């Protein structure tokens, strides 16, 4: 920039020199031009101040005011949105952690339910097995008793039949009908002996 000003200053000096050199003989008019350039004209001065202040007022109210307000409003909005976004992220994080926690809880719960039911099932199974075994045992016992009873009855029946048959046979053989009571006693005696021997 300094070079620029040097060039400008040199141009200005050169030009003024040129003006002076070329305006010999018309110094009067030159002086009036130079005066009008260097000495500020009060009319223009006042006009400028008045006009500039009016322009400033118009622009301040109509242009810069709304523009600055809009910019500030936007700045605030951006700030608020950033804050809201941060808050939303925080909330989302909280929600997701809550969700994870609830999933974990559910998993633990289901695990417990499964293990509880397993235990219960085992218990039921054992009970059923026990009952079944008991039942089978008792049935076996009954069957044994029944069989023994039946066996005894059968043996008794067979003995009776055998006695009757023996008597009949003996009667036929000796063809003498003796006292049946006596016979019967004799046969039974014989039978008992048979059973013993």
């Amino acid at each position, binding site marked *: *920039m300094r070079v*620029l000003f040097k060039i*400008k*200053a040199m*141009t*200005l000096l*050169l*030009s*003024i020199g*040129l*003006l*002076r050199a*070329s*305006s*010999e*003989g*018309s110094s009067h*008019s*030159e002086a009036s*031009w*130079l005066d*009008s*350039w*260097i*000495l*500020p*004209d*009060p*009319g*223009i*001065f*006042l*006009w*400028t*101040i008045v*006009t*500039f*202040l*009016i*322009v*400033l007022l*118009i*622009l*301040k109210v*109509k*242009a*810069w*005011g*709304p*523009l*600055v*307000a*809009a*910019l500030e*409003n*936007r700045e605030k*909005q951006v700030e608020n949105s950033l804050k809201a976004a941060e808050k939303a992220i925080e909330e989302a994080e909280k929600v997701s952690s809550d969700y994870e926690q609830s999933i974990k809880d559910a998993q633990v719960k289901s695990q417990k339910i499964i293990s509880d039911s397993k235990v219960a099932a085992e218990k039921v199974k054992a009970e059923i097995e026990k009952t079944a075994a008991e039942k089978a045992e008792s049935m076996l016992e009954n069957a044994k008793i029944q069989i023994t009873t039946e066996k005894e009855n059968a043996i008794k029946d067979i003995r009776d039949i055998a006695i009757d048959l023996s008597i009949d046979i003996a009667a036929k053989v000796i063809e003498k009908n003796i006292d049946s009571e006596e016979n019967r006693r004799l046969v039974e005696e014989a039978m008992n002996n048979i059973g013993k021997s």
Partner: protein
Amino acid sequence: MNLHNTTSFGDIVLHHVTNDSNHVYYPFHLFGIDLSITKHIIMLWIVCGFIITLSLWGTRRYRKNIKATPKGLSSLFEILIDFIKKNIIDPNIGKKEGKAWLPLITTFFLFIVSANLLGMIPIFEFIKGGSATITGNFAVTLALATITFFSIIIAGTIKHGFFQYWKNMVPSNVPKPVLIILIPIEIIGMVVKPIALTLRLGANMTAGHIGMVAIFGLPFLLTETLGPGLAFGSGFISVSLNTAIFFLEIIVCLVQAYVFALLSAVFIGMAIHTEH
């Protein structure tokens, strides 16, 4: 340009860089002050009309809806406001106090840059009565600097109160004899600030135009001394040289507007932050 009559070349050059106060469109006097409408007043109104139209058009979306998003010209205005706020206002005046001064500095920048650039457009030469660049007129730049001058005082007064502001001008613990020197220096410093603003902007804008007109005048001057043939050749040089200077001038237009706005902000900031 006819150099053979009584009008000198200097007159011609100055005619192209100054306001012709003799060419009055509408004579108007108030309390003994000549407020006649001359070309620079018309140019002043053109510039003001231009920036008002542009700004109102560019910010119309925000007047309708505070939540509007930038589009087209309004994004340009958002960039302008953002640039001035972040690069000029906030570092020099401060975020809190700067809010009140943002409209002034923005209007300064827009006004000066528009006046500078509109002055570069040759079409305004068709309006008779001198130069088209109002920022090359010291009356205009002095008026702008005067607004800065009073803004500095107002800023300091609002912040520190009327008496405290003037007391802040001088350091508190200096021996009395030093004050005799210090007070005039401070007063001079106060006045020099706006004068520097006035001269910097006015001289920069005028110098460029004087240079360009002088270079354009070279072939006409050389016709007398070297003859029309060589003068014609020098015409090529002056046109190409001026094309280059024109681009330089566009940069200068932007830089000077920025410098004026920046320095105004710096001075206002100095009045507010006296501890520095």
